[in-house]
């Protein structure tokens, strides 16, 4: 029985009159890849923000590796072994690619000194394929490269749990395939992953389990097959079950 | 008690002038997200302008005020074109430094021209009595002018085309440009109105007290306090904030010496920024 790395219990988050999340509850065992999907504005990034400490939920708890971390600061979560990427990438523009990744290694869970962090940065850059650009300024990278940088920074902290927010957005099909393969290799190294994604066929292929959010509520949970065939999910995305069904079958081909 | 009441009323009247000055600062911020660090020296220029116009051209101070307003408007447009236009979309530090450099230029030239000696308009309108309280005529007229200006500003912003353009740009510059608002001209105009209010407030203050080229600095700090008190970008908040500050300044002499005023104002400033950064009335988002 693998242990649960994350338990989200009854998480509710309101912003003034807007109910962003309502009673979200799920468990996440170690070494799983959990796909988090839902239409735009469903609250997926908000959920990430609650898990990693950017927001404190109005109700509910977040339990990380058995400890209640609800309302912790983002840097505390980083020290506990949680790392994330952002939907809109946040490179440290005036620093080199290597320095960017070193920040992750220095201030993450393992708290390395500069010299060791440099070595880790080189390894990770090799892993994500940015090694040749190590000395370039982060601002000089294109969007796809910046996404890989964002991932490298997260990986350099050797996290237990990695939150990926739309790492596939804006990539062409071969880039998507590469990234999916990278994600799998990361999981094979022992990291648990939650992925927010809109590229449906990719996330369905790689996830062990999936959760679907719509208007802040959890409308479905299960394996990719179960989710695909769940009419509520299909309706949430497209409003027309037959059309959706046709599109899903097209994607599978 | 009479002493306190007199001070309070006096403070309230002066508060109107503070409000005008603060409105200038907050308007510029509201429209273009720029904090005009030349605000203080422009107030001082207003003081010197009215002095020069009355002593050299023999104009009556209140007539001179009109010219001061016009000059303030023109100066603001020039400052915008030369210093602010290029950095309007750059990080905030750039516009802060750009406007501060204008501050330095004005103070540098002003000190050379006028030295740091005090000047006095030597203007008086006598006193009037309101019940048990004696008021200085200049204060009352000054407050009335401030009210007139406020009404004029309101009319301009809500009843004229340019005023509507200004509000549109303040709301969403990109959208305004899309529907054909000439944003660059409007930004220049807005900056000019902001500096006009500052210069005007300086001119009115010159009818109250003696002044030096450096006097603007004190009023600049007051404007900052008022602007955060009333909410950055909120002109009504600025006026009300000005009245509140005026009242507070009216109370202080009863309890401590006036040299403590800047200290009290700073503490207020920081406390507001820490605990209620959107001000009493809400900042522009």
């Amino acid at each position, binding site marked *: 029985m693998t242990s649960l790395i994350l338990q989200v219990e009854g998480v509710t988050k309101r912003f003034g009159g807007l109910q962003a999340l309502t009673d979200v509850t799920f468990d996440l065992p170690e070494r799983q890849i959990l796909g988090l999907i839902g239409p735009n504005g469903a609250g997926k990034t908000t959920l990430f923000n609650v898990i990693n400490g950017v927001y404190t939920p109005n109700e509910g708890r977040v339990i990380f590796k058995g400890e209640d971390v609800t309302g912790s600061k983002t840097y505390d979560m980083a020290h506990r072994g949680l790392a994330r990427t952002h939907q809109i990438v946040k490179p*440290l523009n005036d620093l080199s690619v290597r320095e960017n990744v070193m920040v992750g290694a220095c201030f993450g869970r393992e708290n390395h000194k500069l010299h060791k962090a440099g070595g880790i940065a080189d390894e990770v850059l090799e892993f994500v394929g940015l090694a040749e650009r190590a000395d370039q300024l982060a601002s000089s990278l294109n969007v796809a490269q910046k996404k890989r940088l964002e991932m490298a920074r997260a990986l350099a902290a050797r996290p237990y749990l990695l939150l990926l927010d739309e790492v596939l957005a804006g990539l062409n099909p071969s880039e998507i395939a590469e990234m999916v393969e990278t994600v799998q290799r990361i999981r094979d190294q022992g990291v648990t992953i939650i992925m927010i994604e809109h590229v449906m066929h990719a996330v369905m292929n790689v996830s062990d389990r999936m959760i679907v959010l719509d208007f802040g509520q959890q409308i479905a949970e299960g394996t990719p097959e179960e989710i695909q065939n769940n009419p509520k999910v299909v309706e949430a995305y497209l409003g027309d079950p037959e059309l959706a069904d046709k599109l899903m079958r097209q994607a599978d081909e | 008690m009479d002493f306190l009441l007199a001070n309070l009323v006096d403070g309230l009247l002066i508060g109107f002038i503070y409000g005008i000055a603060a409105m200038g600062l907050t308007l510029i911020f509201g429209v273009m997200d720029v904090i005009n660090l030349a605000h203080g020296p422009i107030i001082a220029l207003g003081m010197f302008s009215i002095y020069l116009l009355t002593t050299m051209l023999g104009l009556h101070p209140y007539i001179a005020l009109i010219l001061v307003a016009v000059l303030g408007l023109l100066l603001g447009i020039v400052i915008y074109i030369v210093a602010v236009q290029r950095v309007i979309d750059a990080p905030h530090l750039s516009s802060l430094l750009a406007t501060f450099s204008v501050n330095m230029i004005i103070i540098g030239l002003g000190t050379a021209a006028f030295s740091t000696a005090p000047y006095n308009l030597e203007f008086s309108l006598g006193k009037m009595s309101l019940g048990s309280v004696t008021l200085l005529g200049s204060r009352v007229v000054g407050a009335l002018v401030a009210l007139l200006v406020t009404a004029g500003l309101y009319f301009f912003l809500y009843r004229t085309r340019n005023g509507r353009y200004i509000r549109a740009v303040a709301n969403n510059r990109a959208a305004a440009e899309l529907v054909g608002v000439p944003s660059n001209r409007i930004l220049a105009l807005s900056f000019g109105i902001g500096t006009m209010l500052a210069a005007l407030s300086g001119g009115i203050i010159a009818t109250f007290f003696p002044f030096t080229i450096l006097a603007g600095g004190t009023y600049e700090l007051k404007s900052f306090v008022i602007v955060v008190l009333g909410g950055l970008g909120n002109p009504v908040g600025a006026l009300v904030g000005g009245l509140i500050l005026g009242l507070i300044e009216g109370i202080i002499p009863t309890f401590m010496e006036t040299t403590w005023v800047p200290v009290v104002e700073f503490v207020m400033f920081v406390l507001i920024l820490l605990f209620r950064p959107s001000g009493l009335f809400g900042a522009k988002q």
Partner: protein
Amino acid sequence: MKNWRNILGLVLPLLVVAALALWPVFSGKAVDQETAFTILKAVALASSLNIILGYTGYVSFGHIVFFGVGGYTGFYLMSQQGWSIWPAMAAGGAMSGLIAFLLGKAILRLRGAYFALATIGVNQAMLALVGNLDFIGGPIGMNLNFKVYKEYGGAQEALQMAFYIMAGIALLSVIVSYAVRTSKFGLGLLAIREDEDAAEVMGVVAPNAKTWAYVLSAIIPGIVGALFFFKNGNIEPHDAFPLHTSIEFIVMVMLGGQGTVLGPVLGAVGYQGIRGYLLTSPIFKNIQLAVAGVLLLLIVLFIPFGVVGWIRNRFPQTRRVLQ
């Protein structure tokens, strides 16, 4: 990674400072020593400001307040309590550091322009406060009894000593600047500057890092203040808390290039050079502040990364050296 390029990043600024310190020795002229003293003071203050401004990205407009606090602390201890200069300087630095710590707790949570405004308010309020405190001389300030200089062998000797101490402080400020820049702490500060939220997500404890950066950036100005006013012989509020001078230091840091070790040093030398020329030129003497303003405006509009920054961008190979 101590290869020669990195060491050069420290050695270059140190050489500049050393040159400044040795120049009056070789020229033998007293006026040169005065000039060098002023430039060395600027180097120390600009390099310290750079820690909070250039590395951390928090624009401390009123940073001169720490110079004033240290100045008043040191002066009071020397003139009224009979302390000798070394503990007085240390006390000046310590007091500034303490004020920075307390102040930082309050205002470092403000971002961008709000923080900048708050620092202006701090300086102006300190100016007003000090003018109200009679035990440190009120609006008139304090004077140093010339007897005090006897302890150091006389006024001439004291002046000379002050010069060498200032040179030492300037060297120290460069070393501190380099040490921060090349440390893990410094990397955290740079991350905060680039994107504070992203830095926190990666584990940088921003509140603590900012506070320490602010404290560190305040200590040397405090020490410099104590030394400066000792040499000056008297202190009064407007000399201790000159807001426009505070901005001049921002100009120096930006002129040379913020966020580098060499930048503030070159900026200080360059700016003081220009200023010295202006003050002695009959045309520009009175409008020195105005010319400084024009210079600042030109920098902001056309070379916002300063001279060193421009070089680094144009010639990327220099990035390792011009740290």
